[in-house]
């Protein structure tokens, strides 16, 4: 091991620990202290009072139940539908096409999806309008289809948002599993393709997709933006309730709010533990099932049903984006009409109306956060290369940590710490907080292509006398331009989607498209909300477009380097 590699490795580790781990641990610790009555600003000693306060709040039990049902239900449903679609795409040989078609959909931020989905399924939404035209309705139906008390709209909205992600992860994982061999062998033993998928391929696939599934699960249990837009409002899900209590004018509410944040974290931990236990139980049951040797003729139908529903959900996602676009250009669109009566560019032509400033903040923050995270990720990967050490399990855990912890669990505490450091309300605090969630995605996106780089290329450069730095800047980075830009686009998309970190660290002074869209979503003019949501979706789209276009233009005479994804 060479000292040069050691130094880089050590400094990257120090930066990650100081900038990522420490704030999270400190924030979580501060939230925990407040949950037990310890708060420097407000005084008060160690007590369980916040907890009795929390459980005395009206609707607490309902909030907890709502979070559990929407969180676990949506993740399970998205997983099952993704599996059905993955099998269907693999069987038809269209997996590559599916992956390319899904990538941009993935970029659409949560809030925009939720708003569009709401515009779609609301009593006076697009679906009702289309039905009204067919059935001759004059008035919207009197059913609460959005923000319904059971949380079904939220559950379905989460499925719409997470299905493309899980499907993409599954398709990528399936490339690392001997799918064709398993199918040929299993079918020659009398099993249908569906039976082989469930008995042989899924058990091989699961270890590769476990972590992303858990990330989706943690998010679904603790998301705030989508739950505010689509979830019931009184009582809301636990994460929304906690966010509201933190924002309560009565400062003493931070006590039960902190206890709620800790409860929310405990809920995530308990559910993730439940997945672990279910995995073991299912593995054991699966083995008994496999040993029984039933050839499973009926399973093909079940998987086809799942893929059919999956297609329908993907369709809802596309329709949600369409309806956002329609509203942002609509001038008059009254109820039973399937399309707007008249169109207008009024909102788009008037950035001073508000969206200009929000878009500017979103763009600036996104670029800064992405640059920061990309630099750190490249430094990390280069340090791994130079020290010639594979990534340790704890390092992987470190990368995933911010994605598995509920944001609400440590953002309040972090905000308090930033407040004491005089950072709150500034752009720097928001950049820092967003980077906590952007860095993992950039790292995940860049790791595989980085490791897939042909080692012969590096050895050749070294044998020509290029030192480590020249190998990095003249060989690795240019060769990996495509994947680096894609990782940057993903990071940018994640930044554009950030709601809670921007809200908490910006102290309400930094209005991005995400915070504005969520705020406006409750009861504002659909045309205005549509404009914000379209912009929020358009920025990541543009980033992906650039990530794909730049290598094509720059490397137009270099076939091997042109593909971005």
């Amino acid at each position: 091991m060479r000292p040069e590699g050691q130094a880089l490795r050590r400094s990257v580790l120090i930066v990650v620990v100081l900038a990522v781990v420490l704030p999270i641990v400190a924030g979580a610790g501060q939230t925990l202290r407040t949950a037990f009555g310890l708060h420097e600003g407000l005084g008060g000693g160690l007590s369980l009072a916040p907890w009795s306060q929390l459980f005395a709040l009206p609707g607490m039990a309902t909030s907890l139940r709502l979070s559990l049902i929407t969180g676990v239900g949506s993740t399970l449903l998205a997983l099952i539908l993704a599996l059905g679609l993955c099998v269907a795409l693999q069987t038809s040989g269209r997996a590559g096409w599916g992956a390319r078609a899904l990538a941009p959909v993935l970029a659409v931020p949560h809030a925009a999806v939720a708003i569009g989905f709401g515009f779609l399924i609301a009593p006076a939404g697009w679906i009702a309008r289309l039905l009204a035209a067919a059935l001759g309705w004059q008035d919207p139906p009197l059913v609460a289809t959005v923000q319904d008390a059971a949380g079904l709209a939220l559950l379905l909205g989460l499925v719409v948002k997470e299905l493309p992600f899980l499907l993409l992860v599954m398709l990528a994982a399936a490339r690392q599993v001997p799918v064709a061999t398993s199918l040929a062998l299993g079918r020659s033993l009398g099993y249908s393709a569906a039976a082989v998928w469930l008995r042989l391929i899924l058990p091989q696939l699961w270890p590769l997709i476990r972590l992303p599934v858990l990330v989706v699960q943690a998010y679904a249990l603790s998301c705030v933006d989508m739950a505010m837009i689509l979830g019931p409002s009184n009582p809301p899900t636990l994460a929304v309730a906690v966010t509201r209590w933190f924002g309560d004018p009565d400062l003493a509410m931070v006590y039960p709010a902190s206890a709620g944040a800790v409860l929310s974290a405990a809920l995530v931990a308990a559910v993730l533990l439940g997945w672990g236990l279910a995995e073991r139980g299912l593995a054991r049951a699966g083995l008994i099932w496999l040993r029984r040797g039933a050839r499973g003729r009926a399973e093909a139908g079940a998987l086809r049903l799942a893929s059919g529903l999956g297609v329908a959900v993907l369709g809802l996602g596309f329709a949600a984006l369409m309806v956002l676009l329609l509203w942002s250009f609509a001038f008059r669109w009254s109820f039973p009409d399937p399309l707007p009566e008249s169109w207008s560019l009024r909102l788009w032509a008037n950035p001073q109306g508000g969206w200009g400033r929000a878009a500017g903040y979103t763009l600036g923050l996104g670029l800064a956060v992405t640059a920061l995270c990309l630099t750190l990720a490249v430094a990390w990967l280069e340090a791994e290369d130079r020290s010639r050490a594979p990534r340790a399990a704890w390092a992987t855990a470190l990368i995933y940590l911010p994605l598995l912890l509920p944001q609400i669990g440590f953002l309040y505490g972090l905000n308090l710490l930033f407040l004491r450091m005089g950072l709150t309300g500034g752009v720097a605090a928001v950049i820092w907080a967003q980077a906590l969630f952007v860095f993992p995605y950039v790292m995940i996106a860049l790791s595989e292509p980085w490791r897939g780089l042909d080692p012969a290329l590096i050895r050749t450069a070294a044998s020509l006398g290029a030192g480590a730095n020249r190998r990095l800047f003249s060989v690795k980075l240019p060769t990996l331009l495509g994947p680096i830009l894609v990782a940057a686009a993903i990071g940018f998309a994640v930044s554009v989607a950030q709601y809670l970190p921007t809200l908490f660290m910006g102290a309400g002074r930094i209005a991005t498209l995400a915070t504005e869209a969520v705020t406006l979503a409750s009861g504002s003019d659909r045309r205005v909300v549509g404009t914000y949501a379209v912009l929020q979706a358009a920025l990541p789209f543009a980033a992906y477009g650039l990530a794909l276009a730049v290598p094509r233009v720059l490397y137009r005479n270099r076939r091997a380097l042109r593909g971005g994804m």
Partner: protein
Amino acid sequence: MALQIEALTISPRGGPALFAPLTLTVAPAAVVTVMGPSGVGKSTLLDAIAGHLAQGFVQSGRIWLGGRDLTTLPAEARGIGMMFQDAVMFGHLSVGDNLAFGLTAALRGRAARRAAVEAALQTAGLAGFYNRDPATLSGGQRARAALMRTLLAEPQALLLDEPFSRLDAGLRAEIRSFVFDHARARGLPVLLVTHDGEDAAAAAGPVVQL
């Protein structure tokens, strides 16, 4: 039960046929060897008979097994066992569970099924290997275990896709007679694809050149 192939042709979509129309009959307990240089479409022929033909290929002609027309049946409904070049064992399952996966569903009862798998392991010289990791098996052990897995599914015909080519010379003769003996004992028609003359000689049956 005989395996009959009637004027079978295979061609890549829009391309010329891989070989002249093939008609042959494999009698029960007989081994027919198909030989030819690599790339001529030997494996593709087996894929077509077993029902694994990849998208992008077109076939014509008919395939019969004991009077049953298999031509349009999916692979899993044909009752044709197949041995592949690599004797693939599923690494996430134990050796015994690999065999249990093959065992026909017709045999019921946990104890009876376990006994059938143990007996097959015994036959393969792998007694006591139920819980072993397949990655720890030698090439010969793996080939024998893979054959047992195929036979436990109670196929009515057996296709061999150069299953001996990856074995070293000493092991080859042993595994070859192990496979042929078991297939004969069950009266299975066997179609062997190889480019090794020794395989054909050992099979002691008709040889078809592609």
